[in-house]
């Protein structure tokens, strides 16, 4: 895989990606509007001695992209030295092959921080582990509070439709309630990452 100026220039800007979205565009914009940037995040990125390129792998159908890419987008608006380029994962198999989650999963979004010469400084994938863990915890609580939902790992197609619809609503509400925590965790991880690798 070669990443050079020519390849970089084939990536979309954040605004171009938004404009080409065929799915979830409204949800993406809503998420972007309600991102609360921590001043510490802005300060950390603004204090970097040199600008950073951020290569992003994404698809517009992905829930984690719709949740987390707007955070980077908002940050880049605040920090002009962050140069973001977005590539569709499925059109760039050589890129995703380089940044597989746990060496095997094509999880997105991927944020790859690069220096001006396209050398990788660090990368971030999908969502913070703390968010995954908290979701699992909250999911367990929902099932514990509603025996009619059955076992957490049981196939949902066995549930009566009305019960399944209620379970889905509860899970969606739980995710919604977690947005402030999740956004803060994404920012914390990005701050820590660039603080470690800043040159």
């Amino acid at each position, binding site marked *: 895989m070669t990443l050079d100026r020519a390849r970089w220039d084939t990536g979309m800007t954040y605004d171009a990606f938004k404009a080409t979205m065929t799915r979830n565009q409204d949800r993406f914009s809503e998420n972007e509007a309600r991102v609360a940037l921590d001043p510490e995040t802005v300060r950390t990125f603004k204090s970097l001695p040199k600008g950073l390129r951020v290569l992003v792998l994404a*698809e517009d159908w*992905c*829930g984690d992209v719709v949740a987390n890419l707007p955070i980077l987008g908002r940050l880049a608006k605040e920090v002009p030295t962050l140069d973001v380029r977005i590539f569709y994962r499925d059109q760039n198999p050589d890129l995703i092959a380089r940044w597989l989650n746990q060496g095997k999963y094509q999880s997105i979004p991927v944020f790859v921080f690069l220096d001006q010469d396209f050398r990788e400084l660090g990368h971030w994938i999908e969502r913070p582990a703390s968010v995954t863990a908290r979701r699992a915890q909250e999911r367990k609580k929902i099932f514990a509070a509603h025996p009619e939902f059955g076992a957490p790992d049981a196939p*949902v*197609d066995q549930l009566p439709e009305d019960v399944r619809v209620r379970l889905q609503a509860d899970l969606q509400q739980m995710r919604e309630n977690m947005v402030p925590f999740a956004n803060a965790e994404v920012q914390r991880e990005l701050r820590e990452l660039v603080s470690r690798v800043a040159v």
Partner: protein
Amino acid sequence: MSAKPLRVKITYCAECGYERQALDLTQALMYEFGSRLSAIEIIPWESGSFDVSVDGDLVHSMKRDGGFPEHATVKSAVRSRLGSAPTV
């Protein structure tokens, strides 16, 4: 002998973009079994799931079995419950 029609349910993770795999499997089952299936129900879900049940039996689970099901595996599960010979 007229076999009892079967219901197939496909639960896929909508957040993961598994629509294509769900639709491909649906199409394969429609072409293969037609009206011998009473219904194919497609359930949008989350959490990285791709589960297929035939007449209430879970014949594939992404979490349990890994990945997407082979169409042949699902067809075979349907065939065995219909009691019909394989279609060549």
